[in-house]
């Protein structure tokens, strides 16, 4: 009855749901959402089954096969890593689907939303299960595409459309490098299957420069998807999408895909010390920078977005310190508490009729008790408060940094302090004190479909703290009792940051201090838009130049005699098009002959 193909069912259930919605049930919103939820629950059940039966091997078949020339196997990989990710992705995905039933209940495009959500689940599961680079890349792109659709769900809002475009284009820049890296690896080792690349690594190590280039190019892809500096700009803007999407894509799963991919190919990256150095520093820079920016944001979702960036920085840091175990451990715990935080934020936002500015909230702990308690659990985990899951996983990374690289450790500790600071600020401003707006005063708790997932997630976060529970899923790095001072320092930073923020923001109606530099996110967006403007202007100039050069015929006779220099050039340029066409033709011929014969 249950055969080996169960992994395939897990993978395809959401795709079938998406197809059914698109083809048949577009008109019926209720049925569409039901289909989508049913599919993801089925996948979750399957994932649990796979998780329980560890002996199952992954069935494989060849997708495209030409012996000796080109083989792309269509295979799934089922190891500890992917089993764990399967459960996390489908589990959190299921919760978020259910939550969406409440959050999106009155939305016009509910069918479209659920179709995209299902498609996203399919793509994400594909990334998790792929056993080769080609499939991984295809699902990778599909994830990018669906997240583009979901971010731009409310495409009639300009900001949402812009954010979607930004996300997509930034990701493409990363993917450009990723694909080049894949091609380089494949060209040298002759295989795209992870398991087959591993025994042939000696070919790569003989050429360290090439290896480093390939590793860094692959990292490019991860940097795009996991929003690492300098490709991080899309993630905060992506908060324009519906909140469940933020929770699913931009907290728990998609952004983690980069880290997951790095863990998958860690065996390649770890061969190149240079690449590891670059990766660890990029991770650290992202962590510190995002934490700094988060301290000055006012939008509740943006604060969470920057905290995501910062936590992803930690994970990448761990990869750079060649411990994918620690990275995955943090990914695992982070997925739960960050999804919890986003869903909590969504509950707040719905209660306040889509108000996202934290200074318009305040005192919500009285009206939104469940949301407050669960949010508090998530926040404590994010800060790294001892009994909760975040503490252990963060501690593992800190210990790692302490062991290998002191400057990184100091910066990581500083980030921990900043994290505690801004999370406490968020808690205090949103939930404590007095309501600062009418909406906040009359707010009411969200319905059960929304609070239910919150409670489940909060319980998971609490249990996540126990090594016994977590150990079932990930290989927890062994505790280094030598470094007892690391946890102590971490708790110190936590207490310091939290206390500082508590003192600063208690009963304060507006921002305590204003640092424009941080508020404007280091002006990185401005720099980018300046660069883009310059590029566009350059392109416009080039095209105008061509325009005049080849095409413009009007006023040849009357072309003002003008000064000799530019005037003469322009007149040459205005020869009338066909003549110029044949001139370029001739120039091309002469150049080619020169190139082929005389060079």
């Amino acid at each position, binding site marked *: 009855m249950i055969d080996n193909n169960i992994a395939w069912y897990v993978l395809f259930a959401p795709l079938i749901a998406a197809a059914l919605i698109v083809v048949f049930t577009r008109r019926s919103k209720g049925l569409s959402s039901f289909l989508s939820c049913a599919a993801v629950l089925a996948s979750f059940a399957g994932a649990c089954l796979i998780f329980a039966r560890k002996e199952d091997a992954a069935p494989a078949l060849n997708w495209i096969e030409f012996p000796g020339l080109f083989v792309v196997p269509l295979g799934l990989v089922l190891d500890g890593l992917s089993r764990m990710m399967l459960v996390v992705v489908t589990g959190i995905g299921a919760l978020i689907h259910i939550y969406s039933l409440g959050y999106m209940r009155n939305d016009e495009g509910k069918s479209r939303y659920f179709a995209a959500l299902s498609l996203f689940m399919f793509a994400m599961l594909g990334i998790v299960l792929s056993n080769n680079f080609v499939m991984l890349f295809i699902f990778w792109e599909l994830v990018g595409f669906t997240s583009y659709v979901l971010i731009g769900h409310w495409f009639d809002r300009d900001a949402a459309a812009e954010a979607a475009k930004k996300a997509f284009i930034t990701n493409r820049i990363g993917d450009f490098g990723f694909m080049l890296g894949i091609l380089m690896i494949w060209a040298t080792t002759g295989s795209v299957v992870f398991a087959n690349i591993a025994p042939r690594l000696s070919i790569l190590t003989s050429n360290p420069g090439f290896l480093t280039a390939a590793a860094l190019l692959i990292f490019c892809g991860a940097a795009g998807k996991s929003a690492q500096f300098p490709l991080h700009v899309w993630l905060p803007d992506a908060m324009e999408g519906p909140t469940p999407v933020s929770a699913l894509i931009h907290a728990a799963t998609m952004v983690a895909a980069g880290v997951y991919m790095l863990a998958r190919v860690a065996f390649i990256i770890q061969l190149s010390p240079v690449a590891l150095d670059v990766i660890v520093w990029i991770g650290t820079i992202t962590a510190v920078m995002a934490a700094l920016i988060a301290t000055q944001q006012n939008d509740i979702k943006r604060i969470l977005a920057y905290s995501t960036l910062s936590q992803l920085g930690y994970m990448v840091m761990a990869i750079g310190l060649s411990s994918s175990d620690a990275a995955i451990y943090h990914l695992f715990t982070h997925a739960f508490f960050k999804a919890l935080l986003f869903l909590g934020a969504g509950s707040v936002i719905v209660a306040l009729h889509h108000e996202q500015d934290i200074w318009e909230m305040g005192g919500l702990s009285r009206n939104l008790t469940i949301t407050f308690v669960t949010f508090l659990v998530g926040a404590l985990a994010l800060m790294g408060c001892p009994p909760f899951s975040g503490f252990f996983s963060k501690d593992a990374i800190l210990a790692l940094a302490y062991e290998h690289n002191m400057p990184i450790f100091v910066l990581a500790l500083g980030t921990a302090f900043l994290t505690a600071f801004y999370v406490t600020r968020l808690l205090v401003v949103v939930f404590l004190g007095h309501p600062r707006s009418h909406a906040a005063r009359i707010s009411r708790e969200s319905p059960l479909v929304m609070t239910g997932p919150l409670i489940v997630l909060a319980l998971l976060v609490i249990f996540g703290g126990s090594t016994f529970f977590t150990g079932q899923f990930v290989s927890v790095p062994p505790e280094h009792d030598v470094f007892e001072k690391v946890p102590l320092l971490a708790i110190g930073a936590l207490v310091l940051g939290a206390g500082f923020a508590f003192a600063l923001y208690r009963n304060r109606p507006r921002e305590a201090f204003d640092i424009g530099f941080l508020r404007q996110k280091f002006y990185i967006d401005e720099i980018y838009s300046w660069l883009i403007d310059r590029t566009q202007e350059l392109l416009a100039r080039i095209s105008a130049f061509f325009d005049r050069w080849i095409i413009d015929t009007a006023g*040849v006779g009357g072309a003002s005699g003008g000064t000799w220099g530019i005037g003469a050039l322009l007149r*040459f340029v*205005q*020869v009338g098009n066909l003549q110029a066409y044949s*001139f370029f033709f001739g120039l091309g*011929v*002469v150049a080619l*002959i*020169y190139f082929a014969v005389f060079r």
Partner: protein
Amino acid sequence: MSPFLFWIFAGLMLVFGAGVVLNRNPVASALSLVVSFLGLAALFMSLDAYFIGIIQVLVYAGAVMVLFLFIIMLLDLRAEKLRKINWLASAGGIAVAVALSVQILYVIGNFRFSQQPFPPLARSTVDDVHHVGSLLFENYNLPFQIIGVLVLVATIGVVVLSKRELR
């Protein structure tokens, strides 16, 4: 053929070829073209290709030139008005043309067989019509039939394009 005659006909061909380019009046250009092709036909004959030479004269002087003249008359084209000559464009075009000819001449100069004199023929080639014809109907039968299709295309095209639309 003696070198003297060769250079006479080659010179004729090139000078009148240049005349096609340089003449302002389309009619004069068309006539230069014919003279140039007469020179070319003479060169063909010097290469013992009598049939091709005669075809050249018949087709170009008899058909193509008439077609050109016909269109020039039909459209009532006079000598080009003295438009402002775009010196820079001309200079660019000439530069490219000179560069191309230098390349071609250099390459031909370095060609291994370019100093090869006329290889002797075993038989007279006055019956080359026979040889060409038999090749045409045996080995080159397929392209010969395709040429028929090609002429059909040209006919349809000319009729369709130059027919006046009735409105």
